Every structure is written in structure tokens, then in C-alpha cells.
């Protein structure tokens, strides 16, 4: 008879055990392995602003000396690096150009894929998705030959522009894919209603659809900007003149020279370079995550 009653003590114990088990799982799976990430970023900030750092992350004495590259040239022995500001402008040019090109191309293509009837539409979508999945970086050698053939190699600013266009082309299929998702999400009825009410297709597009897909454009632009800003391999491989390096390439070279010598200086320089990315991410985090989470749900 007594077996029929629920043993409260036993249940409480089970719940407690489960709570402990869950806490342990979270601790060992999600918290402890994230320690290197914490160390990295705390260390980055601590080193950038202090003259001495103990245990890697505990700052000791505030200084701005590590930021000297902002107002003077980086020099190591006889090796002189170009001034940081033109290099920053190169990076901005690369990133903004990539963002503009991708947004333009992807917006047009996304609209066509989502809204227009044409032969081979499904095949085209499959093809674009396949390109999106394909690791474009294996084409680097061929792209190098191509840039040479087009006369875009070894010509400073023109080479930088070549890298920008190539980067945009490699990002464009993904952009088109995201934009298609956003256009898909605008119900036909809305556009239809606008047309019935006397808008022509272009006005309907501008007044009705555009506001609805603006987050999509923003997301594609932010993504392309960040991709252009972070671009390393192509710029590293293709751009010879240090005057036209983007920040990524200059930092790569400076790291090679200063590691073990001046961590604080490298940390400040890296932080300077990573800052736009971090700011962008913080402000558009919701938007970006929403896209990772399914695109079409806009």
C-alpha cells in the first residue's frame, strides 16, 4: 500500500542530482572550454593599455605608449612601416567597396530569383547555392593568373581594387542567396495590392518592398563589409607594395617582427584593427544572428 504513495524525499533528491548534473555539463562543456577565449580578449585589452602585465591578463600601470603607432611611424631597426592612416584608408576602401558591390549585385539578383519567372530559375538557384558552398579560396592560384592577365597585378591602387572586386565576386552568391530569402518573405499580396492601387512596379518596389527588405540589405552590407575588412589571404598574396596594404597585411608583417619583443604594442595595433568588427557585431548582433538562424524568417 505504501508503495503507491510518492516518495517526496526521493523525488527531491532526484531533482537535486539532476540540477547538479546539468550544472556540471554546462560547466565542463560551455564554461571551462571558453576560458582561452576569455584569456585572449581580456589579455588583448589588458596588454593594449598597460605598461606591464602579470599572468597575462592583470594590468599593471596604465599607459598609452602602446598606441604610439597612431601618431608616429612604426620602425624596427632599418625596417620602416608605412603610416597607419593611409593603411587604414586602404582597408576602409576595400571593405566599403566590397560592401557596395555585393549589396548592389545581390539585391538585383535576389529580387530576380525571388520574384521573377524565367527559364532555368531553379537550376540557377541550385547553382548559386553550390557556389556558396564551394570553397572559393582553392581558386587563389588561378585568380592570381587572372589578375595578371587582366593587368591588375603589381599596380598598387589598381591591384587593391582588383582584390576588392574579386572579394566581392566571391561573396556575391551568398549575398544573392540571403537577399532572395528576404524578398521571399515579402508576401506577394502586398506587392500585388500596391500594383492594383496604381503603383507601377518600380514605385511598388521603392515604397512597399524596399522598407520590408531593408534589414536584408543592411545585413548583406554588414557581412560584406566585415568580410572585406578581415580579408587577408588575397591581399597578402597579391599586393606587393606596402603602401597599398590593408591593415590585415601590415599587422601580419608587424607581428612577425615584434612578437616576443613588444606584446603591448601588438595588442594595441590588433585592437585598433579589430575594433570596427567588434562594434559592428555588437550593434547588428541581433540582425546577424537572425540571419544565421534562417534568412527567410527575416
Amino acid at each position, binding site marked *: 500500500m505504501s508503495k503507491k504513495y510518492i516518495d517526496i524525499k526521493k523525488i527531491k533528491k532526484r531533482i537535486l542530482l*539532476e540540477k547538479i548534473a*546539468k550544472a556540471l*555539463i*554546462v560547466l565542463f562543456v*560551455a*564554461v571551462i572550454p*571558453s576560458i*582561452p*577565449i576569455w584569456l*585572449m*580578449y581580456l589579455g*588583448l585589452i589588458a596588454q593594449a593599455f598597460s605598461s606591464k602585465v602579470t599572468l*597575462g*591578463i592583470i594590468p599593471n600601470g596604465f599607459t598609452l605608449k602602446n598606441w604610439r603607432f597612431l601618431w608616429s611611424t612604426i620602425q624596427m631597426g632599418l625596417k620602416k612601416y608605412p603610416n597607419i592612416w593611409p593603411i587604414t584608408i586602404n582597408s576602409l576602401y576595400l571593405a566599403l567597396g566590397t560592401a557596395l558591390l555585393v549589396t548592389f*549585385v545581390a539585391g*538585383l*539578383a535576389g529580387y*530576380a530569383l525571388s520574384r*521573377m*519567372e*524565367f527559364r532555368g530559375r*531553379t537550376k*540557377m*538557384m541550385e547553382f548559386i*547555392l*553550390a557556389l556558396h*558552398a*564551394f*570553397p572559393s*579560396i*582553392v*581558386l*587563389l*592560384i*588561378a*585568380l*592570381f*593568373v587572372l589578375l595578371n592577365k587582366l593587368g591588375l597585378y603589381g599596380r598598387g591602387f589598381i591591384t587593391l581594387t582588383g582584390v576588392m572586386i574579386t572579394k566581392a*565576386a566571391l561573396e556575391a*552568391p*551568398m549575398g*544573392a*542567396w540571403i537577399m532572395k*530569402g528576404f524578398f521571399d518573405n515579402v508576401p506577394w499580396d502586398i506587392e500585388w495590392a500596391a500594383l492594383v492601387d496604381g503603383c507601377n512596379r518600380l514605385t511598388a518596389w521603392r515604397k512597399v518592398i524596399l522598407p520590408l527588405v531593408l534589414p536584408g540589405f543592411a545585413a548583406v552590407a554588414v*557581412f560584406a563589409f566585415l568580410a572585406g*575588412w578581415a580579408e*587577408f*589571404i588575397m591581399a597578402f*598574396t597579391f599586393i606587393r607594395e606596402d603602401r597599398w596594404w590593408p591593415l*590585415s597585411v601590415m*599587422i601580419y608583417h608587424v*607581428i612577425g617582427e615584434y612578437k616576443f619583443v613588444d*606584446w603591448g604594442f601588438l595588442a594595441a595595433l*590588433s585592437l585598433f584593427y*579589430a575594433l570596427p568588427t*567588434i562594434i559592428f*557585431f555588437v550593434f547588428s548582433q541581433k540582425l546577424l544572428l537572425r540571419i*544565421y*538562424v534562417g*534568412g527567410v524568417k527575416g
Partner: protein
Amino acid sequence: MPSLKNLPRKILPWIFLAPLLFMIILFWLVPVGLTVFLSFTNVTYKNFVKFVHGVEGAFNFTLENFHKLLGGDPYIGEIAKITLIYVGSVLAINAFYSLILSISIVYLVKNEYLSTFMRVVWLLPRITPAVVYGFLWIWLISPDTGPFYQFFASLGVAPGSWLLEKPYSQILMIVVNGYVGASFGMIIYTSAIKSIPEDLIRAAKVDGASDLQIIRSIILPLLKWPMLFVISWQTLSLIASYEQILILWGSYGATKAAGTTVFAIYAWFKAFEMGEYAYGATVSLVLVAIGIVLILLYFKIFGFHKLMQPSKIEV
């Protein structure tokens, strides 16, 4: 522009698609063709300039590169092995580790803010520019001040250099890329877990299921497709991902000593460090071929519609 309305409906879509198609042809299809073309030639740094300017007789067609690839090059076997270990290990982190990671973060951590915060932390390695992420690792493992080095040294694991001593260097290569990869799986799984109808979980709870039981019998079975997606998608990007290796090790000599020469970076070294453009293209061609075959295979397995569902974007 009312004139747009009068354009034949058949042409309009192609006008919209034209810029994208132009880019695809010039920067995707032509390079694939060029990769194939180059691998049948003898273009090196010696005749490269002539080749680019189209001087007649600048190069010859030859099968030599393929002979080299299939037997003449003594390193290919080792490089293939390293690539397999690399892709396999990082893939395991991406697909399986990130699975328990996202279940922990999304389902076991009930506080919404804490959960979002943890996700952002795990996303950091992915969003940080590669050069900065690489630098942070170089610092973490540096014997003078790196906390990572010092922690392991205190446990008695103190190689002279994490960068140059096998197998530490290989472990490092996997860990560095694993942290970037883990967040990809996390993003996909997180959205999949969040899309599980609340009622389903609530019903199970009413029936007395514990969280761990819910994970085992509801969440895990529903994550089968996302997991297959993560594995397929990441295999493709991993066979060609060498950015971090290039940043951390830099030259062929260093990767060779460290045992971190994967296929993709070998092609890079051959072309850009040794000027053997044709042979580099041949090595790349292997990856291009693997990529194309895998994509065709995935389309067959998943069908187009399933493939486009889990994620629209690579972060």
C-alpha cells in the same frame, strides 16, 4: 523609369541577374577552367611573365604535374594524411562538440541573457579578423608570457615551442580551427533547438520527463538533419581552410617541421613561395575536384530543398 514596364518579361530577369552572372563567370568559372588549364602546363616563375603576356612558345603542355602528384612528389602522402587528420578532427569538434555545446547553452542555461552572452563569447573567434585571432593564439602559446603555455607547463606539458614540436603543433592547429568551427555548428543547432515547438517540450515535462530525458528523446532525434548539414557544409570549407595555418606558421619550412602542411596550403606554398604555378594549380585541382564531387553528392543526398533549409548563410 516607366520604360522598364515595357521591356519584354523574358529579358528583365536576365538584366537583374547580369551583374551577378558576370562576376560568377569571370571570378568562378574562368578560374576553375584556368586551374585545369594550368595543371597541364609547365608554367613556373621562369616563364610566368611570358606566359601572362601571351608570348608564343612561352610554355608547353605536359602531364608532368600529374606524374609528380601521383608518385614523384614524396610529400604528397604525408600531406594527405595530415589533411585527413585535420579535417576529421575539426569536423568532430564542429559537428559533435558544438552539439553538446549548443544544448548546454540554449537548453540547460535557462536565463535568456546569460545564454545569449555565452553564445556571443563563443562567436568571438569567428567574427574576429583572422590576423588578430592568429596573433592572440601566438601570444597565448608564447613561452614568455602566454597563459595557455604557462597553464600547461604547470601541468608538466612544456614543449619548447607549441608551434614547432609535433604533436603539439598539430594539436594547436586543430584547436585553433576548432574554436572557429565550433560556433558554426552552434549557430545551426541553436536555431534548430529554438524551432522545436514549445508545446512538445512542455507536454513531455507535464508527463514527468526530466531535462536530460527531453534532451535524449526529443532534442537529439530532431537534430539529425542539422547535424548532417553541418558535417557536409563544414567538410567543404575545411578541406580548403588554411588561413590560420598561414598566419601561424607562414612558410613551408615551418609547417613541414610542425607537421601542419595541409593540402590547400601546400598548393599555396608551391605556387607563391616556390613559383611552381602549374604544379600548385594541380594540387589545387584535387581540392576543386573534391569540392565539386561533394557538392553533387550533397545535392543528391539532401535534395535541393532540404539543403537550403537549415541555414542560409555561412558566418
